């Protein structure tokens, strides 16, 4: 194996970053446009306000939608563009230096922590789900997961010797873990809004 050859998970990471970054960028962009429309006309009904639970409008008007004092989707517009660009670079077969991959790790970790805070707020504080925001949740998780796995297995993130086998074991079930992660959130959503889903059945 030549030094230039990418690890198998880096290949998967390249696709996850490219697709995830592109999808996340579209969602963040739409949310930004909706936010501007909402600022122009407070009575505006965003395209994704479907029913009391699936509603962007009510979510976008909350303080949590401006966690850092400015609309959250602005972070997404900038961040996901970078993620998609890194994905495309990796698709060329490039092997990026350790400091670069660690930078991506920092960004992806911030993203995943922030998104889970938003999930918690959305489910248990706001009590509504915003579809475009959920798209962002759905892509941020694999972006973080595959970045972390790629960095752990490539050695860019150091793993203590006793943990190496465990990491390798988990890495083998990368997509199963991702699906389990998704399912956990789906279960939480289903449980929290059960009484409402029932009325739709």
């Amino acid at each position, binding site marked *: 194996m030549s030094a230039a050859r990418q690890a198998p998970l880096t290949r998967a990471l390249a696709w996850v970053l490219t697709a995830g970054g592109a999808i996340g960028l579209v969602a963040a962009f739409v949310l930004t446009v909706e936010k501007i429309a909402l600022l122009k006309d407070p009575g505006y009904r965003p395209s994704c306000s479907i*029913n009391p639970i699936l509603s962007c409008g009510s979510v976008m008007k909350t303080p949590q939608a401006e966690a850092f004092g400015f609309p959250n989707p602005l972070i997404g517009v900038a961040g996901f563009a970078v993620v998609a660009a890194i994905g495309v670079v990796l698709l060329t077969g490039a092997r990026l230096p350790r400091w670069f991959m660690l930078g991506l790790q920092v960004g992806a970790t911030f993203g995943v922590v922030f998104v889970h805070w938003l999930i918690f707020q959305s489910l248990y504080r706001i009590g509504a789900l915003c579809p475009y925001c959920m798209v962002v949740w759905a892509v941020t998780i694999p972006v973080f997961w595959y970045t972390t796995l790629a960095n752990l297995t490539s050695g860019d993130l150091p793993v203590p010797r006793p943990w190496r086998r465990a990491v390798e074991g988990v*890495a083998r079930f990368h997509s*199963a873990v991702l699906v389990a992660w998704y399912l956990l959130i789906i279960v939480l959503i289903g449980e929290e809004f059960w*009484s*409402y*889903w*029932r009325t739709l059945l």
Partner: protein
Amino acid sequence: MAKKKNTRPAGGKKTRPRPPAAKAAVAAPQPRRRGMSTNLKMTIGLIAAAIIAIGVTVVLSNSGESTAASTSPTDERLVRPDSHKLSTAADGKVTLVEFLDFECESCGALYPDMERLRAEYDGRITFVVRYFPLPGHKNGEPAARAVEAAAAQGKFAEMYRKMFETQSAWGEKSEPQDGVFRGFAGELGLDLAAYDAAFADPATAARVQKDQDDGISLGVDRTPTIYLNGEPVERPGYESLKESIDKALA
């Protein structure tokens, strides 16, 4: 050995020189593919299990049929002495009881039909309205309290109408709409101080809850649920209700 090779960094720190035999073994892509397929199997298995679980949950929750059970036309859980009536039949032959949530869209969709039937059968059948605010609707319960507060001033029917006619303006919101409801009270010319007191009174909430408890004990699990002489009406609409009413009146 082969397993480790899977995740070994390409060209990473080669701490141990690998014997040529091992190298040859890992050169074949097979072990890697086997690892991937276990992952794939688990992934597909998880998705399949989730789909089955969702399916079972939906079936168990009785998606198709309402759990509302038939009961005796004189079952006191259907009509209490303090239940609100939009119209009263002198002969008491036909009683229509609707369990509704003011924020429920299908109740709003049925509302014009109910108004039409009420006009056509005014005085010939008894229309009873029972509160059944659904937990999924943030303002369904406050709306019921607002109507109850208006009822205390003799404006039940007016507030009931107001709620459904304006539902699209205040429904489906996660913010409280108490101010909007108070505005309706003002438009109806209610004594606002008395309205405010009644709206906030725990007794009003308890009155709404009492209706809901009756509904739950009857097996009502959705809104609108309509009982015609103790018999739940499947898929209530203008035609189906008219047919049932005519049959009951005959």
